[in-house]
């Protein structure tokens, strides 16, 4: 019996020829990641161990991106814990405001993560790097502490579900819609404890930016990881960027899957997830009239350059609805500069949008765009739980950047074709 790509990567990092789902293994870690919410707890635990140095200063990454630029004294003190630790340990990959980006946009862009890696991050959206053909999964702070000390982590080898996306995508349909459609189909625990493997004709045509968006939201279906087998598009992205050698793994033709689920992409419209779970999805044609107070375009799901280009193309020469706030947040400094050089900021500013330095702020109700009681936001982010973007009685709807931009103009959730 063959192995899936996930099983092969885990076996290689556990130093064995073969692993089976359900098996508990100890695997070597290529990268461990923490942010300003999760790393302070991990650093405290790390210090209790009595270990002097992290296992590899090149491989422990700390990115203060959630409450940065610091929104208050407590946040500043949390980030200071990271900064002091990074200095003390001489970490290569510590990124200060000004260099910092939303972690899951930043790490691939900097070539820190690559195909065949095993990566843990104390952030649930660490699964983003599955788009590169890596095994990447979210963990908590204690696991991060153990990973920083030993360079290893224990895993239960997950069963895999293979998703096959057949057919061609409709206009204004991208990775975000495919993953929202999938979560709507299987539910927020549909892939609990499992590896999600994304394949098929539609995936093969997706750009890296779209693939990152898909893998990012595997966790919203309860998945352990969301992996896309590397191809030419992956390698083109990685070449000249990756800081370490990489290895391409592919699933064997006779690999065993818990389930194979096929979708006909030609029938998938832009999707909108209604409050308060990412599984409450509807195609745009069935949304009805939903007025909104705020639109956020950004985050580790859709804060990449292609997302900003899509939004700008729809906003060009138009104005944001009078009683609506549009926030545009490029994912990294490089994306910010690229968008600026391409003239996208002129379009955003002319439309009446606020453009921000990279931050996770509004996505998790941290800062830079908090909702009041009764307000409604449409966001390209990945979660719409109760109180996610502010007041517990506010609402968050999720969508792709085209729907977000069109909706910002019309003041209600809109089909991009309405403003084209």
């Amino acid at each position, binding site marked *: 019996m063959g192995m899936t790509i996930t099983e092969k990567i885990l076996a290689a990092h556990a130093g064995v020829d073969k692993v089976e789902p359900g098996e508990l293994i100890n695997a070597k870690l290529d990268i461990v990641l923490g942010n300003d*919410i999760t790393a302070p707890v991990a650093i405290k635990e790390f210090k209790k161990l009595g270990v002097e140095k992290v296992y590899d200063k090149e491989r422990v990454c700390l990115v203060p991106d*959630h409450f940065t630029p610091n929104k208050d004294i407590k946040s500043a003190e*949390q980030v200071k814990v990271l900064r002091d630790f990074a200095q003390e340990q001489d970490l290569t990959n510590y990124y200060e405001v000004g260099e910092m980006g939303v972690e899951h946009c930043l790490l691939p862009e900097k070539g820190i993560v690559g195909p065949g890696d095993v990566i843990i991050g104390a952030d649930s959206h660490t699964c983003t790097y599955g788009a590169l053909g890596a095994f990447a999964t979210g963990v908590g702070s204690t696991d991060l502490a153990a990973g920083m000390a030993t360079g290893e982590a224990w895993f239960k080898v997950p069963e895999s579900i293979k998703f096959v996306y057949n057919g061609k995508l409709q206009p204004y349909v991208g990775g975000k819609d495919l993953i929202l459609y999938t979560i709507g189909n299987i539910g927020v625990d549909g892939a*609990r404890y499992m590896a999600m493997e994304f394949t098929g004709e539609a995936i093969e045509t997706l750009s890296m930016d779209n693939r990152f968006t898909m893998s990012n939201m595997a966790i919203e279906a*309860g998945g352990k990881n969301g992996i896309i087998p590397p191809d030419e598009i992956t390698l083109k992205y990685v070449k000249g960027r990756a800081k370490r050698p990489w290895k391409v793994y592919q699933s064997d033709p006779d690999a065993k899957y818990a389930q194979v689920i096929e979708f006909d992409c030609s029938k998938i419209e832009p999707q909108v997830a209604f409050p308060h779970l990412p599984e409450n999805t509807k195609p745009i044609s069935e949304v009805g009239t939903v007025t909104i107070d705020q639109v956020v375009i950004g985050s580790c799901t859709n804060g990449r350059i292609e997302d900003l280009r899509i939004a700008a193309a729809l906003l060009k020469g138009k104005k944001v609805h009078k009683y609506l706030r549009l926030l545009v947040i490029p994912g990294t400094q490089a994306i910010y500069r690229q968008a600026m050089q391409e003239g996208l900021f002129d379009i955003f500013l002319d439309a009446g949008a606020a453009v921000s330095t990279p931050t996770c702020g509004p996505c*998790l109700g941290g800062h830079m765009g908090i909702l009041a009681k009764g307000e409604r936001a449409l966001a390209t982010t990945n979660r719409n739980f*109760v109180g*996610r973007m502010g007041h517990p009685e506010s609402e968050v709807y999720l969508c792709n950047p085209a729907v977000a931009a069109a909706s910002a103009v019309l003041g209600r959730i809109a089909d991009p074709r309405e403003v084209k």
Partner: protein
Amino acid sequence: MQLQGKTWKFGNDVDTDAIIPARYLNTSDPAELAKYCMEDSEKKDFSSQVKPGDIIVAGKNFGCGSSREHAPIAIKASGVSCVIAKSFARIFYRNAINIGLPIFESPEAAEGISEGDEILVDAEKGKITNLTKNETYDAMPFPPFMQELIAAGGLMKYVGKKVAKNA
């Protein structure tokens, strides 16, 4: 390990934002986090009403969402002795074990137990007794590796031993 307490009943998909909203994550002090535990859930008064030893009983996919360890930390610091659910989201499950918050998967207990029931949990045997309704339910016992972690006193103690051995 025997745990006895009064239950708080929650529904399906209780997410980490409901357990501890992100607006309070600019601290990692357990006592501070406990003050806001379950604030955005269906039971907003949980943190002021919960008593030491109380038990949380929930539906499927408890703890879905964020990797924030602050969620099990907030629950543990509230004095809750254990969480019983139909199923758990995987990062929450892992975090709870790592910080030493006992959790039990038991669909039948999650169905059978009502809010306020007095229950007794026998962790070794994986038996849950409902003293109010005079019923018993089976819970999935921890796999051996987890028992080893728990016996060592959590992940950091387990890793600590390993690090010391390698030194």
